[in-house]
Structures are given as C-alpha cells and as structure tokens.
C-alpha cells in the first residue's frame, strides 16, 4: 500500500503530526536525522529522503534553517504532483522570505502551504482537542491536510492567505517570547494586553507589505495563536522568554529548552526590515533589542512607555 503522508523531522511536532495522521487512518513515512523513537504499525521510519516521494503530501517539521537544504535534496525526487506543507514559524533572509516561498524555489512543487495556529505538539501527540489553520492557494492542498490530520479532536480551518498566515505565525512566535519575558519580569495584565495588541498590529502592518491580508492577523493564525500563548500552552517560546528574563545567556537557553526557537533570529530580521522599509514597528524593534541583549528590560520599557500616544 502506498503511503499518503510523509513527515520530515522527528521532533515533537513531527511526531505529533505523524500520530495525528495515524489516528486519521493514514500510513505515514517519517524521515529524521535524530535518534528515532519507536515507530508503529502505521508510522514507518525511512532511511533516505527520496523514499518520502512515495507520499503525495509531505510535511516539513524541521526548524527553518534546515528547510532550504532539505527541500533542495528532496526536490530532486519530487514533481508537480507533490504537496508540500511546513509548520515553521521562521522566515528566511533580509527580505523576510517565507518558507512556502523557499519550498517553491528549491523544489519543482507549486502546490505548497503552511500549517499554523494554536497547534501544540503535546496535544497532537496525545490526541487532545485542538485546532489549527492550513494556508494554501490550492484548495487541493487544504483538503489534503484536513483529510490527513482532522479527526474528532482536531479541527483544521482553511485559508488561501499563505503569506499572511506564515508571517502571523512568525509574529506570534516572537510575541510569545515577549509574553514569557514580560511575565518573567513581573509585568501585569494591562502591560501584557497592550504589548499583545500593539505587537499584533505591527505584525499585521508588516505582513500586509509582504502581501498578506490584515484579517488573517485577527484570526486563528494571529490572535488565536497568541491567545493560546497567553494561556500558557507550554510552547518553547514562553520558556525562552522566561529564561531571558531570568538573565540566562542566549547560548545556554537553547540547551535548556531542548528546541530550536525561531523567534530569536526572526526578531532581528523583522526589526532590520522595519528599519529599512520605514514600517512603523517600535515594539517589535524593542523586542529584538532586548532579545539580542542590546538593552535591558527597564530601558526597553522606558523607551516604549515614553513614546507619544497616538490614535489606535
């Protein structure tokens, strides 16, 4: 029997997707460089990337820095009939290239998409109730993802605003770190609320310049996802923020968390992009400064609070 779903990456999220697909009744092929956990009757671990070409739908569940090379390698064995979907919160390069754009340029595939929203690896693994959003310009891809993952405990919504969803997801990753950091600093709910809403407005502003739609940032990929972070859904970005607030050096944080966090790299790129294009993003820029250790929280807060208040 030919497998319908393939997963690249055997981290928490990769396994979460594999288990969800398994629960939905699909055969799953998985490839990972990590030491593997036990497969199952329906999840088959493969030794080489080309074997994944047997599936029509391929999920990329690896950190963004690995995606270009893996896509190029796998792309040698794919054609226009494959659907590629990533779950990364990352962006690439100084022009904030999204990962779906990377997939399009590194492989012959065009039917690509992104899976985002308040999906949590643990819930996917355990089959706890949850949901997310798949973005693709191709309804076939949206349907394939829904068919591959949806079940009684998992609701997948759809949109064609790929860039909007990808950048909202990136922005939420960054804001979730800010939430963790602010909580770690003992800031109160009002400050958090201002930070969340102004931060999301800044994300939407930049997202629109990249080609996304404003409403996407108020939906599941934007506010929906951010609300889950506020509810402390255990995502690694919150832990990174808390560790930064506790003064843990950046180099140690990765080891402590045990996961690659996209927000650290993205925040620098977004701040640079905003400076270069003149996009108004004071909060995101300050977050980048804090994450990079250029300013401390007191300086950042003073700078933000000292800004002139305008119309919303």
């Amino acid at each position, binding site marked *: 029997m030919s497998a319908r779903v393939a997963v690249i990456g055997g981290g928490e999220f990769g396994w979460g997707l594999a288990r969800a697909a398994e629960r939905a009744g699909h055969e799953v092929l998985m490839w990972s460089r990590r030491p593997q956990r036990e497969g199952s009757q329906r999840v088959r671990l493969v030794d080489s990337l080309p074997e994944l070409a047997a599936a*029509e739908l391929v999920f990329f569940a690896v950190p963004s820095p690995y995606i270009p090379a893996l896509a*190029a390698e796998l*792309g*040698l064995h794919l*054609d*226009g*009939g494959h659907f590629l979907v990533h779950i990364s919160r990352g962006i690439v390069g100084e022009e904030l290239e999204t990962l779906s754009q990377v997939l*399009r*340029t*590194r*492989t*012959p595939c*065009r*039917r690509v998409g992104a899976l985002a929203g308040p999906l949590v690896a643990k819930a996917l693994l355990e089959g706890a109730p949850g949901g997310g959003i798949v973005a*693709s*310009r*191709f*309804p*076939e891809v949206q349907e394939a993802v829904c068919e591959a993952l949806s079940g009684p405990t998992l609701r997948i919504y759809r949109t*064609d605003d790929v860039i909007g969803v990808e950048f909202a997801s990136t922005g939420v990753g960054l804001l979730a770190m800010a939430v963790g950091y602010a909580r770690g600093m003992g800031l109160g709910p009002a400050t958090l609320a201002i930070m969340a809403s102004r931060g999301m407005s800044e994300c939407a502003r930049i997202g629109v310049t990249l080609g996304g739609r404003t409403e996407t940032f108020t939906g599941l990929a934007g506010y929906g996802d951010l609300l889950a972070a506020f509810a402390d859904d255990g995502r690694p970005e919150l832990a990174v923020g808390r560790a930064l607030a506790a003064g843990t050096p950046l180099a140690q944080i990765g080891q402590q968390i045990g996961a690659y966090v996209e927000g650290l790299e993205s925040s620098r790129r977004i701040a640079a992009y905003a400076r270069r294009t*003149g996009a108004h993003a004071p909060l995101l820029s300050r977050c980048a400064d804090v994450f990079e250790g250029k300013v401390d929280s007191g300086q950042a807060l003073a700078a933000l609070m000292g800004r002139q208040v305008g119309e919303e």
Partner: protein
Amino acid sequence: MFRLLSRPLRLPAFLGPAPRPDDPQIFRFNSERGPIIGDVVRRVVQHYAGQPQKLLYVLNEAGNAEVRRLAMQDDLEASDALGAWRRLVKRLGKMNEDEKVQELRRITGDMAEDIAGNFDPRVYALATRIVPGVLTAIMKPSSLPQQLLGGFRQLGELVSTEGPIEKLRRLARIGTLVLVPTHSSNLDSVALGYALMREDLPPVVYGAGKNLFSNPLISFFMHNLGAYRVDRRIQAQLYKEVLKTYSCTMIERGYHSLFFPGGTRARSGMVERRLKLGLAGTGVEAFARNQARGVSRPVFFVPATLNYALVLEAETLIDDHLKGAGKSRYIIEDDESTQGKRVREFFAKLLQLRSAMVLRFAEPLDPFCNPVDDEGRSLAPSGRPVDPASYVKHHGVATIDPARDAGYTRELGEAIPRVYQRETVIMWTQLVAHVLYRWLVHMTPGFDLFGRHRLRGHKLPRAQLEAEVGAARDRLRAISAAGGVQLGPVLRLHSPAEIVSQALEAWSGYHTKAIASEDGDKIVIGDPNLLLFYQNRLVPFAEALATAETAAAARTIAAMGGGA
C-alpha cells in the same frame, strides 16, 4: 434580434490557398472557426445547465446589464438590441428550464460569433509585404522611395528585437506560445505584430478592444489577421465567460496567442508589478484540459517588455494617472493615438532616433513558472526535466480543476512582473528623466507630489546632470551585469554628455510641453508630470542608483511605487 456589433468584411473563402502542413495553426482557422464557436457554446452551456439557480442568475444578470448599458448608449446599434434584451428579462420568470437553456445557447452563440475573429492567409501575405511600406509612409512619406530600395532599413533600425528568438521559433513548432508583454501604448500591438513578422515568428491571435475596429481599414486587417473583438463596455458575466472560453479553446487548439496581462496601458509609465493575468490565465486551463483528454501539447508563456524612448500617449496617460482616473477610464478614446496629426508627429520624431523602440522577449516559462529548455522541456530548480503534466494531476490523474488553476495563475501573476523588471530595457530618456526628477525631489523636501508638480523652471547645471547621469549609468551597468535589468543601446554605447543631449533632442518637437530644455549651461525643468512618466520605469532601482546626497530623494521616489 440584437446585433452586438457589425459584421466584418471578408474575402470569398473559395479563392484562398490551402494551408501547408508546417504552417502555424492560425492558417487553418477559417476551417475551424465553426467548430471552435460550437465548442465555446457547448462548454458555456454545460457550465450553467443543470444548475437552475445559476442559470437563472446568469441570464438575469446579462439581461439587466445589457439593458442598462444599451439604454445609456442610446444609438442605432443599441436600439436594435435593447428591445430583445428587455423582452428576455420580462419572459425569464415564465420560462421553463429547457427554454432558458435554449436562450442561453442562442445568446452565447451570438456572443461567440461576434468575438471570433478570422484569418485569411492572403491578407497575411499582403500585410507582410505592405506593412513596412505603410508604416514608413505614415512615419516619413518622403523617405518611402529610398526605403523601398533599401529594404526598409530605417524601420528595421527603429525597432530592435532582443531575446531568445531562435528558441521561440523552435518552441512555436513544439507547443503553443502565449505572449504576455508589458503594455504602454496603443502602438504595442502594431510593434509586436511587425516584430513577429520580421523575426519569422508565427502570427498570434489576440483580443483587441472593439474601439480599434471602428476604422474600416484597420478593422479589415484586424479581422483577417486573427484578432478577436473584445467589447469592454459589456459587463455581463456571461460575456466574460464566453470570452474566457473562446480564449481557452484557441490555446487548447494550438493557436499562439497574445495578451496584455496588465489589461490596460500602464498610466504611470511604471512597469506592471501586479498582474491578475485575466484572459492570459486561460493558458493554464487550456494546458490542463488538453492533458485531461490525453493531448500533451505544451503551453509556453513568453513575457516580453516593450520599451520606448518616447511614448505616443505619454501626456494623456500621466495626466490620467495623476488625476487618479486610470482605474475608471479603462478605455480612453481621445488620446494621442486617435489623432492622426499627433501620430504623424510622433513617428516623424521617432524616426530621427535610432533604436527608439526595443522589444525584448524573455526566456519562456511553462504554466507553472518553470523555465523551459530549447526542446520545450520544463526544468526543475535543479535543472533536471520535470513533467508539466504532473502539476495538473491529483492522485496520478490529470484533472480539470478551475480552483487549482486559479492558484497557478496567481503564481504566474507574481512571476511575470519579476521577469518584466529584469527584462526591462532602460532607455536613455528614462535615465535622464530619473536624474532630473530625483534632483527636483531633492530640491523640494517636504513638498507633496502635487505641490512639487506645480513647480516649473527649476534649473540644474548641465555638468552636474551629466555627472549624475554618468554615475547612475555606471550603477545600472552593475545591476545589468548581475541580471537585474537591461540597458538600451544609447546607454550602453554613449558618453553621459551624449546621453543628455540625445534625451533633450528626443523630448523636443513632439510633446506639446517642453519636458526639459537648455538655458546656457543649465537645464531647465519644464514639465514635472512628463518627467515623472519617463522616470517611473526606474522606480524599482531608485535607491540603488542614488548617491549619498540624493539618497533621501531616491527613497521618496521608491516609496511612490504604488500601482502601475
């Protein structure tokens, strides 16, 4: 019954020669015209039949849209058709499903008949012989005898053609070409038609605005050279469906086609940066439909840029742009291209210049944005061939899926403008305009666009202009070497002083307002509007061309971006 438009003039069919096997598909059009119209009607009817609500809506919408349009049109043509549409709207509620389908078939048939063009090989042969002469006669009557003897060398020098022409000739034999050029002037289709003919590329069919058919002579050539009529006044959804189906059917059957995917001439002078593709998108559907019925004829999209040192309708277009009227005035019927005197003046001026028009073809793409090799094979990013049929397959089966094809069309709509940008040929007038305009912006900080454009008479030392033109040209050369843009012949070969002189020379004598002129050792800005128009092609490169002193002005220009 209503007639949307008058019947075209055609020569008797029985006198025509039979097409040869290696002739392009269009040479067989006359024998296929009936089946093509039949196909269009069948498909459109199939699209709506069996869905009572959709059928009723499309008939109602067509009826009411036409009644509204014709009532406003209020002429002889309108009075013929108006009664019929009114009766249809009145009767619709009482019709049964069969009667509605009959009515749909009849209206669709009338529309398709009206849209469908004609191709007469005799007219094509005539055109290939007389077009250079006619063009020369229009442009410079006094030189006609001399040009006849010299094989129209001057005309040849006026329009230069660049790009992978030999490859396009080859691909035209393998599959169907869909030309998608930039659109700046009503001369575009004439220049393209002439260039295709000269380069021994096959003739193409294209949808020409109905207004171009009002002149009987032009109408005769248009009709008999494969152009089909697009009446932009008709807003009915059904008409758009018929048009789309016609265009798709033609590509499916292997007719090389031409579309201006920007839809309308770029009012601002900028190269189009966002495209919806419109009818050009039917190339994707045509490929998929062929695959679904087992026909594997490739479709090649060929982006091209049309680059003019001088634009016939520049004054009207930029006025329209600045008034914000570009969107609403989709059809301009009173611009320079409709005024014989202005056209003659334009050509007289153009003929004094060399390579004043550059048509540059880009590397062709398949419908899925992949480059193709000389054999027409689609290439993956790794350079290996990839089967284009795989893009229209789901679970291994080629399918017809309009939603999927809309996705591919959007991708093409983003890819083609990127090609336009790097295949734009920068002309000398554009670079000089850019440097002058940048200086104007630099000298007027804090001014808004309209405040700045009210200013006249700002002066710049000629030596400074030449130095800045030289520096900007050097930066353009570097961008060009990296494949980011192309340089026109004058910019490639001449000194900054000559470039400035030739720009001033090109601008004088045709435009009714002096764009810039010499005053001693200074250059005086006369018309910022036209300066803006000509410099707008350089907007994407403004920051890269700026010096430290002009960086702020360049940022202002870059931020003007906006819609083309």
